[in-house]
């Protein structure tokens, strides 16, 4: 294929992306076409090694969060013996012992649960906020859009970590439920509250792109309500980009949770969390570097799993970016 043909093809795909494929109206009308997008994507995904690495890592991580016993090699994270304090990794205890003399492998394995709960809960709230606000702003436009977009701008101007840091610091002294709990719920809500804007912008732009299509006009002519048009005819177009965004964001939020906990405003003792392990390990980074390295390694692999899957999904779902 010559370069020109290649460019033409890309051009066609861009055109197609706004009218067919990504933008198929609703499931019941054009089922075959909807299927072709997703089955094309699956065919593409199957051949991508990055996707498989990410998927396997993800599966391991989820399994670790649900049944950490499988990974702890029979050790109890809370059964500690000070005599073992900071003992280095050995054949029996792969990750060594922490400062309190607890088996570190068990502690790191049990830490996955809080990370997963916070990552998933935060991303769900981000999606709800992002989809609702983004859909309303994009669909109604005008003053509604102006006000909602400015509000998103305001939150966007505050760095995620900074906003969540302030909220979590003052949170326990307030009487707002969940926020004052010092638990996973508070961390997840704080992250979502300062992290919903990108999802909102994504959904808003998707809605604007298709709201003037013929099929939306047809639905309106048939007397469909705003709600029905949005939910049945417009929002299904946003599923693909939102799915990609969600996958990557779970990883980003898990990293942010560890950071907040490290900074002392996230999860508190006696919770088991990678952020807490890194924070405690920091004090003995010279004598026992494994205390920082192991939770860091598992945290990084987890974040990487979600980012790799998201990248692979984007390549599969968006033919425009394929070279």
């Amino acid at each position, binding site marked *: 294929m010559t370069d020109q043909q290649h460019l033409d093809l890309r051009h066609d795909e861009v055109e197609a992306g706004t009218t067919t494929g990504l933008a198929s109206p609703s499931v019941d009308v054009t089922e075959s076409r909807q299927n072709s997008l997703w089955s094309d994507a699956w065919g593409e995904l199957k051949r991508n090694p990055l996707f498989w690495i990410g998927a396997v890592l993800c599966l391991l991580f989820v399994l670790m969060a649900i049944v950490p016993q499988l990974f702890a090699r029979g050790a109890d994270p809370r059964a500690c013996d000070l005599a073992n304090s900071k003992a280095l990794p050995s054949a029996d205890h792969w990750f060594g012992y922490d400062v309190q003399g607890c088996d570190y492998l068990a502690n790191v394995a049990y830490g996955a649960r809080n990370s997963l709960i916070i990552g998933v809960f935060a991303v769900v709230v981000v999606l709800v906020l992002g989809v609702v606000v983004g859909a309303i702003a994009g669909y109604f436009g005008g003053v509604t859009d102006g006000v909602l977009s*400015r509000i998103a701008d305001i939150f966007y101007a505050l760095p995620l970590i*900074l906003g969540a840091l302030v909220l979590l610091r003052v949170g326990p002294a307030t009487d707002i439920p969940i926020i004052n709990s010092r638990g996973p719920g508070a961390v997840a809500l704080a992250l979502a509250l300062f992290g919903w804007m990108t999802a909102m912008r994504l959904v808003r732009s998707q809605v604007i792109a298709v709201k003037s299509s013929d099929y939306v006009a047809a639905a309106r002519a048939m007397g469909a309500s705003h709600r029905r048009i949005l939910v049945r005819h417009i929002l299904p177009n946003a599923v693909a980009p939102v799915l990609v965004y969600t996958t990557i964001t779970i990883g980003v939020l898990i*990293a942010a949770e560890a*950071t907040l906990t490290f*900074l002392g*405003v996230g999860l508190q003792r006696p919770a088991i969390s990678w952020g807490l392990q890194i924070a405690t390990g920091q004090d003995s980074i010279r004598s026992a570097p494994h205390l920082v390295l192991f939770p860091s390694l598992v945290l990084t692999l987890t974040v990487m799993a979600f980012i790799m899957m998201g990248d692979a999904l984007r390549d599969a779902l968006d033919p425009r970016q394929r070279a």
Partner: protein
Amino acid sequence: MGRYVARRLLLTIPVLLGASFLIFGMVYALPGDPIRALAGDRPVSPAVVEVLRERFHLNDPLWVQYWEYLKALFRGDLGTDFRGRPVLDTIERTLPVTVKLALVAIVFEAVIGLVAGVFAGIRRNGFFDNLVLVSTTLIVSIPILVLAFVAQLLFGLKLGWFPIAGTREGLYSYLLPGLVLAAGSLAYVARLTRTSVAENLRADYVRTARAKGLPNRTVIVRHTLRNSLIPVVTFIGADIGTLLGGAIVTETVFNLPGIGREVFDSVRAQEGAVVVGIVTLMVFIFIFFNLVVDVLYAVLDPRIRYD
């Protein structure tokens, strides 16, 4: 263009006010008595408390307090911390550290990111391209917190190349934290440059340049690179806000006395005036550079016209 800039400047006002009010609300709406905190263990008479509450507008509703804060802000008065030091002095003391750190990070980001991206983009799907793709995926996935510790452990403790904390060795002590802070954006710059270069290499004007018989070097440097740089330059400008957020973690781990660590310490100590002052400054910097980038976009790319 002038009208566009004016309109954008007007639009930044509600965002700036909104963001600072958001932080102000979170910091001051909390229960707890700042006067008691101010007095510490010493007993204070109710009359003194009343006078102080009146002076700091603590009896007024939140929006009145915010209005008083704004009025003082326009006089250049950001208030004082609990020890009576003006917040402005704290910012003057800590801001240069963060500016230096951010500059070092931007240099790393631009130089390494651009070079890696250009070479990857020229030989797409070659060995170097795949190396860049894999390593950027890796770097993006490593939380900045983890990266900071690994860098400290490896380059500071094991190899002893760089100091792991403080600013005693001048600009040299900024190199390691600067690299850590830049890492995520660096990977992004490399990818952006790669895509942009690869795309422009297929453009018609590049084929024309080749057809004219220009040497490969000229085609790449003069024709491809210039156009490929537009999105990269704008990304780097818009990224300054992200760097400020990352500075909170980097400066804390590397013990650099910049605004990032200062704001973190102040949040922990509930030094409301310092938190609000620094966050407002950060938001201002973020909005300012975003505006600069949008204007720059039109200057660099004549196809973009805002009016």
